[in-house]
């Protein structure tokens, strides 16, 4: 250490005084955070960019020029279109069902004391943290035992099951943050319990319901592992993509991925912006 500084000392005297970089003062956390964000976004950037790649062979791996033909030809594979439609239908239904069930459960957990509350927490916690393989294998075991054919409806059942707890937790956090004085004020002004709920509580819970519904939608449209266990002959978007990994994934998949990504981000930004504006 000291030898190194000794050797370094004579040099600067003959050089122009230079702005010294104080390495301790640099905001390393910022660079690190941005590096991590870049790491996280690299495959996404790749996906978006290679949706515009003029790929000739079956493998869309090297850049061969810009084209819009995959966007023009996005529905070239009827199976892929059908898979995307199935995924969207399941995701929307999951959002609605899990939104209602999870919203009610979140309200119960946030507002009331009741027997079995700790048990409910435990079950939700287990359902969230259980590995997907276990959830999928369990559901398939039950469907096999009961001789239920797997397909669209079993996928929907599975998706609602794993996303309902996320909605409940999001809504509960919001219920706990509500000011009870507002509801008391409504009651003091003569509102019936139902009117209080409809006109005061529900509007205040709406952002959390939207956020929870968005989480359910994203979890549903994303899911591969559980879905593969309970899908039967139904193919969803992730399952179809998986099927193409051996033979080369067509660029249309990048296009659809990009569009879903764009819509998801747009919805998240709108939800955040609306929530901010209301305050």
């Amino acid at each position: 250490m000291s030898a190194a500084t000794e050797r370094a000392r004579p040099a600067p005297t003959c050089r122009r005084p230079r702005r010294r970089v104080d390495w301790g003062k640099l905001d390393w956390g910022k660079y690190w955070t941005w590096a991590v964000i870049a790491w996280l976004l690299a495959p996404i950037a790749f996906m978006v960019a290679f949706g515009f790649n003029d790929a000739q062979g079956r493998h869309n791996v090297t850049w061969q020029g810009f084209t819009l033909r995959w966007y023009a030809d996005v529905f070239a594979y009827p199976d892929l279109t059908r898979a995307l439609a199935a995924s969207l239908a399941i995701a929307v239904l999951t959002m609605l069902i899990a939104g209602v069930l999870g919203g009610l459960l979140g309200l119960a957990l946030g507002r009331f004391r009741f027997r079995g509350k700790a048990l409910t927490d435990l079950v939700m916690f287990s359902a969230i943290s259980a590995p997907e393989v276990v959830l999928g294998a369990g559901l398939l075991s039950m469907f096999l035992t009961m001789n239920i054919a797997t397909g669209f409806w079993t996928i929907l059942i599975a998706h609602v099951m794993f996303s309902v707890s996320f909605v409940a937790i999001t809504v509960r956090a919001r219920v706990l943050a509500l000011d009870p004085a507002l509801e008391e004020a409504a009651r003091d002004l003569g509102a019936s319990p139902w009117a209080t709920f409809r006109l005061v509580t529900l509007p205040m819970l709406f952002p959390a319901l939207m956020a929870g519904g968005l989480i359910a939608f994203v979890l549903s449209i994303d899911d591969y592992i559980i879905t593969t266990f309970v899908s039967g002959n139904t193919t969803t978007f992730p399952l179809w993509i998986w099927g193409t990994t051996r033979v080369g994934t067509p660029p249309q998949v990048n296009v659809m991925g990009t569009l879903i990504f764009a819509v998801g981000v747009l919805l998240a930004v709108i939800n955040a912006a609306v929530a901010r504006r209301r305050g």
Partner: protein
Amino acid sequence: MAENLPPPTPAPAEAAPPAAGASRPAGRGRRALPYLLAAPAWLWLALFFLVPICSMLSISLMSGDLYQGYVLTWEFGNYADAVATYWRQLARSLAYGGCATLLCLAVGYPVAYWIAFRGGAYKNTYLLLLLLPMFVSFVLRTISWKALLADEGVVLGPLKDIGLLPEAAHVLNTAPAVVLGLAYNFLPFMVLPVYAVLERMDHRVVEAAQDLYAGRVRAFVSVVLPMSLPGVFAGVIMTFIPTSADYINAQVLGGAHNTMVGKIIESQYLVNNAYPMAAAITFVLMAVLLAGIFSYARALGTEQVMEVQAR
């Protein structure tokens, strides 16, 4: 996501009908209300989460074959068979999951810390940027990694062309590729719980520590780090469980010799239809992982872990 949303103004009072004497509803109806609210979700979770686990348990104790049918014979030998046959994949899954979790912690903690303490007005923007990959299907993200890291792909191709890497260099089909892929896919599960705890912390404690002549390192090690441990524990649980049970990364990025236990479960169920064996392996995996969670949850209190997740 929800707690930073501001409360909207209450609805105008004149819209409410006058309901004299109805402000306190009858005791019994009010007591039943939470159960009625919780019932639908409970029913769904009981029917499609708890019952399936039980039916898997019963399948794991069956014997027979696909053509004759499987019969419940309390065949505990299935478990011994499962462990004896697949202990290697199980151990590999735990090792890869453990490495990925440590990597997530090492990469994610500084990020969570910086956003919580220095993010300023842009905290939510940074969080959104971290969550952006979640809007792209998990399978598609992993396949994109494979294409990025392909032998002649966008990253390795140019490096080979300018001679920085030997022609035979490859990243795919190695254990580090799997661990990196797992860490990539599950990093937000580590960052969010840690961030939640750090964000809630009173940031003046750091100033207090510095007033008491603690250096920056000392202030972090003896004040911030201990206070953030609940978040770290939650993050470790939320990362370790899915990474060690995942098999997509191993299959896409790791090739044939890096099979993880999830793949065994999937192919035993869906390809070989060896249900008792498959159910037994699943239970072994679940037992190993759940033992871990419950000892963590016991040490911390489930409520606290749940609360961390909720934020």
